[in-house]
C-alpha cells in the first residue's frame, strides 16, 4: 500500500507518538490540575511541557498563549466567533478552506462585511489587490498559509505588514504548513496561528491549537465555550487568565502527549530535512505527471512556494475514476474531489469536478513516487 493522502491526515504516525499516548494514559492518568494529587499534577505537567515546546516551535515567548483545541477548525472558529462583531470588515483570499469560509459566511449573514481577494489560477495572491482591500476599517485578515488543494503558499509576512499598517489583526490557517515548513510567529508578525495536530505535526486526530502572539490583547476575544478550568473555582464567571479563558472542560491529554511527541520527533529530525525530502518527491511527481499527455498539474511552478501537494486532472478520465483505480488496482491512496475548499477549486478552474490530489509525507519514498507515476500512466492510457 502507498499512502499519498498526508494532506488529509498524516500516516503512519511515528512510533514515538503512539508510545507517548499509551504512556500518558498509563502513568499520568489524573485530571490535569483539577485534583491536586500526584496523577493529576503529572497530567498537568505533561500538558505544560507540551505548551512550552509548542511556544518554542512557533517562536512566541509566553506558553500560556498556546491554547489547545480539538483541531484547526476549532481554533479558527475561536478567533472568528470570539473577535468579530457585526459591521466589522474582514479580508480573506479566494482559496480558503471551508473551516474559514463557513464561519465567515455565517457571520456575514449577521452583518459582517467580507471582502474576498482573488488569487491567480496557480494560487498566487495578487499583492496589489490585497493591499487595496485592507483599509483602516479592517478588523481582521484571514489567510490560508498554504492551499490544501494545490500546495501554493501565500506570503503571510507581507500580508501581516499590510494588516498591521492598517490596524488590523492577522489570523493564519496553518493546517497545511505547521510541521511542514518552519513557522516563526515573531518574525512573521502573526497574531493568531491556527494549527491541527494530525497532519504535518505527526500527532493524532482530535488535537490542535491556537497560538496567540505575545502582543495581542486577548480581552477582545470572547471564548467559544465556558466552563470548568480547575482554577478560580470560587468564581462563576469565566476567568480572563490564559490559557484557561479559552480551555474549558477536561482536555485531550492523550492527544496532547501524542502531539508533543510528534513535534519532538520533527525537531529531532529537523524540519528542514523533512521539507527537502518532501520537495524532492514533489518535484518528481510534478515532472512525471507533466510529461503525460492530457494531464494538467495545478499550483505554482515555484517549488520554494509549495508544500507537498500535487493536484491534477486528466482530460479523458474523471477524477473519481482515477482515485478508485489507484486504490483498487494499485493500492495507492489519494484524495479526489473538492477537498473541503470549493473556493479554491473555483479559483483554479476545477469546480465542481475537483482534482486528484497526491500528498506525500515524511514517510513516503522515491520508490512510492515512481510506482505512482507508473500507475497513473497505465490508468490514463487504458
Amino acid at each position, binding site marked *: 500500500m502507498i499512502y499519498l493522502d498526508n494532506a488529509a491526515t498524516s500516516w503512519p504516525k511515528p512510533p514515538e507518538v503512539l508510545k507517548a499516548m499509551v504512556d500518558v494514559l498509563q502513568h499520568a492518568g489524573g485530571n490535569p490540575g*483539577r485534583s491536586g494529587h500526584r496523577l493529576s499534577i503529572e497530567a*498537568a*505537567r505533561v500538558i*505544560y511541557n507540551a505548551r512550552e515546546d509548542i511556544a518554542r516551535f512557533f517562536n512566541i515567548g509566553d506558553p500560556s498563549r498556546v491554547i489547545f483545541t480539538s483541531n484547526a477548525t476549532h481554533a479558527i472558529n475561536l478567533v472568528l466567533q470570539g473577535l468579530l462583531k457585526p459591521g466589522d470588515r474582514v479580508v480573506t483570499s479566494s482559496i480558503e478552506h471551508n473551516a474559514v469560509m463557513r464561519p465567515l459566511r455565517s457571520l456575514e449573514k449577521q452583518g459582517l462585511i467580507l471582502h474576498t481577494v482573488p488569487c491567480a489560477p496557480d494560487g498566487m495572491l495578487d499583492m496589489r489587490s490585497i493591499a487595496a482591500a485592507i483599509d483602516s476599517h479592517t478588523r481582521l485578515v484571514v489567510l490560508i498559509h498554504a492551499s490544501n488543494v494545490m500546495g501554493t503558499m501565500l506570503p503571510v509576512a507581507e500580508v501581516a505588514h499590510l494588516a498591521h499598517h492598517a490596524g488590523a489583526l492577522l489570523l493564519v490557517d496553518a493546517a497545511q504548513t505547521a510541521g511542514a515548513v518552519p513557522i516563526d510567529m515573531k518574525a512573521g508578525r502573526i497574531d493568531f496561528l491556527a494549527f491541527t495536530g494530525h497532519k504535518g505535526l505527526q500527532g493524532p486526530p482530535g488535537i490542535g491549537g491556537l497560538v496567540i502572539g505575545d502582543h495581542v490583547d486577548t480581552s477582545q476575544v470572547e471564548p467559544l465555550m465556558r466552563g470548568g*478550568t480547575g*482554577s478560580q*473555582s*470560587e468564581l462563576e464567571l469565566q476567568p480572563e487568565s490564559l490559557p484557561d479563558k479559552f480551555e474549558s472542560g477536561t482536555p485531550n491529554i492523550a492527544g496532547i502527549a501524542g502531539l508533543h511527541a510528534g513535534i519532538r520527533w520533527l525537531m529531532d529530525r529537523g524540519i528542514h530535512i523533512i521539507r527537502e525530502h518532501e520537495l524532492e518527491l514533489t518535484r518528481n511527481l510534478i515532472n512525471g505527471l507533466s510529461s503525460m499527455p492530457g494531464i494538467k498539474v495545478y499550483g505554482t511552478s515555484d517549488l520554494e512556494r509549495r508544500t507537498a501537494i500535487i493536484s491534477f486532472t486528466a482530460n479523458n478520465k474523471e477524477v473519481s475514476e482515477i482515485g478508485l483505480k489507484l486504490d483498487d488496482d494499485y493500492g495507492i491512496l489519494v484524495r479526489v474531489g473538492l477537498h473541503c475548499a470549493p473556493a479554491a477549486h473555483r479559483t483554479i478552474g476545477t469546480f465542481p469536478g475537483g482534482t486528484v490530489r497526491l500528498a506525500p509525507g515524511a514517510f513516503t519514498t522515491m520508490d512510492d513516487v515512481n510506482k505512482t507515476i507508473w500507475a497513473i500512466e497505465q490508468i490514463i492510457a487504458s
Partner: protein
Amino acid sequence: MTEYGVILFYTTSSAMRAEKLLVAEGCSVKLIPVPRHLSSDCGVALRFNWQQQEKVKSVLDQAQVEVDAIHQL
C-alpha cells in the same frame, strides 16, 4: 521543623511554569492541592521553603509569572 510558604496561582499552567523555573534554580518546591483555609479553589498550589522566599519571589518576578497570593503556612 521546616517552615513553608505556599503560592496560589490563577491558572494550573502558571503553577506548572513556576515549578519548572524554581526547580531549575535549585529551590525545593512541591505542588500540592490548594489548602482549603487559603482558598476554595480546586486546583494546585506550590509549596516552598519559607527561608527561600526572597529567591522564590525574585525568580517568579523575573520570569513574570502571574501570582495570585503568597502565604506563610
